[in-house]
């Protein structure tokens, strides 16, 4: 296995903005659209993804020499499923309301392509430290993306942030922002904003 590749620090930094899973790689769209109706749900989701991604990356990295090419996706999925089940049962035991709100989206982390992508791209090729740093960086990037979308949706849709009132009482709640169309519109506009920001920055560095 090739030992060269990005260093752990590069892996960590890359995950946050330059290779942000949502805004740059457009991976994991299903939870991005489905659970960003309010900040609490979005942050719980991000926590679950952090846990699953970190553990799956470490395990995959440890067994990377045993992997057979034609079986690797199956092994990734089984590893991920193990940790997703742990996260799912944990939430059901200690955060029952949240577990009910997130519904099927916690089990669906199993097929979240952010995690399979990181196992394939990083953990199955690099050491444990790089894989761990990569998992944390990607998770932070994912959490930031979810937080940005959930902030817009919760503030416009309910006038609150983390269930705290931030808008004046007279604020008319935009029900559409809580509903699925609001997720698509917000994601599209923020994605456009992120691209525009990236373009203007690369134009500046080029000049």
């Amino acid at each position, binding site marked *: 296995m090739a030992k060269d590749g990005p260093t752990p620090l590069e892996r960590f930094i890359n995950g946050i903005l330059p290779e942000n899973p949502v805004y740059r790689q457009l991976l994991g769209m299903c939870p991005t659209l489905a659970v960003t109706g309010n900040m609490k749900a979005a942050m719980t989701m991000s926590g679950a993804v952090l846990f699953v991604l970190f553990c799956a990356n470490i395990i995959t990295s440890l067994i990377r020499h045993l992997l057979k090419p034609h079986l690797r996706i199956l092994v990734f999925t089984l590893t991920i499923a193990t940790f997703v089940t742990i996260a799912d049962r944990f939430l059901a035991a200690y955060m029952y309301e949240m577990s009910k709100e997130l519904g099927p989206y916690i089990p669906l982390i199993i097929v979240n392509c952010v995690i399979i992508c990181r196992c394939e791209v990083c953990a199955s090729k690099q050491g444990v430290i790089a894989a761990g740093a990569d998992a944390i960086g990607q998770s932070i990037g994912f959490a930031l993306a979810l937080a940005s979308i959930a902030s817009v949706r919760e503030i416009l849709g309910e006038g609150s942030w983390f269930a705290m009132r931030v808008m004046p009482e007279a604020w*008319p709640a*935009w*029900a*559409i*922002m809580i*509903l699925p*169309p609001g997720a698509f*519109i917000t994601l*599209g506009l923020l994605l456009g904003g992120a691209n525009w920001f990236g373009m203007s920055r690369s134009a500046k560095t080029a000049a």
Partner: protein
Amino acid sequence: MTQETVNNDATETEAPVTHVAPGPHLGGGCLTARWMMLDVLIGLLPVLLVSLWVFGWYAARVLAICVGSCVVAEGIFTAMRRRQCRLGDFSAVVTGVILAFSLPGTAPWYVAVIGSFAAIGIGKLAFGGLGQNIFNPAMVGRAFVMIAFTSAMAAGGYVASEKAGVPDALTQATPMTALQQEGKVASLGDLFWGDTNGSLGETSAFACLLGGLYLLIRRTAAWQIPLGVLLAVGIIAGGQNLMDLQAKWTVGHHLMGGALLFGALFIATDPVTSPLTGRGRWIFGLGIGAIVMLLRSLSAYPEGVMFAVLLMNAVVPLINRWTVPRPVGGPVPSKA
């Protein structure tokens, strides 16, 4: 691609200039975007007069907010895209007027403003501006506020809360709601002249027909679309009527009630979001009429013109592909 060579007059012999340009070569100067939009505005005049007569100050207020916000939104968003600002073609004004005519007179100011920004921003300029949008911008704006501010746009939103100094029309439920919830039937005369509650522009069948006729004569609107809508509604509602001869809400009520005529003549005929060919326009119109009847009869909404137009807008590219006309001289050779 045809290429045409235009030689300058032979009198200027010293400098022969050869112009080579792709078609079209004839500019009539009449059917420009600007003239079409002005035509729509002229066609909307009777509707405007009736809505001012029925709703008075309420109509003027919503109209002013919508047109103002649409023009401002157009200015802001074109500036963001660093495009030349094309307010001169009046398309933003038309969007604002049609959006205002599709809102209730009691709509709060923020509904009108947000609807206008959604119409211009999400409905039009996100797709690349006039001529590129898939969906009718005014209907996108209305759909946005309808889902965002359900209480302001649902049946209750149409009725003014205070009673003093309010036009008579605003104190009663809209004919479509009254029918759905209480089984009350409005008289055909009221529906025809427009002395009922409803969205600002939809109440009077007479005004819509008058303005629509002008658009059809000017050929700004394609005649197949409104005819298709009316035909589909007429056939389906007529069938329902025949099955239940005692029904008080007749074909006439279906044709003149709600936003049907306004939608068929002014909204569905938007040249950008309707099919290009005659056959396609028939399919488009019939489809809208059928969906309107489906929503009116079976859904929880009293009226369905907005959703019908948006749904059929979505299939316009498909319709255009189905109905490619056969050029003179034989069929197009199939692409291998």
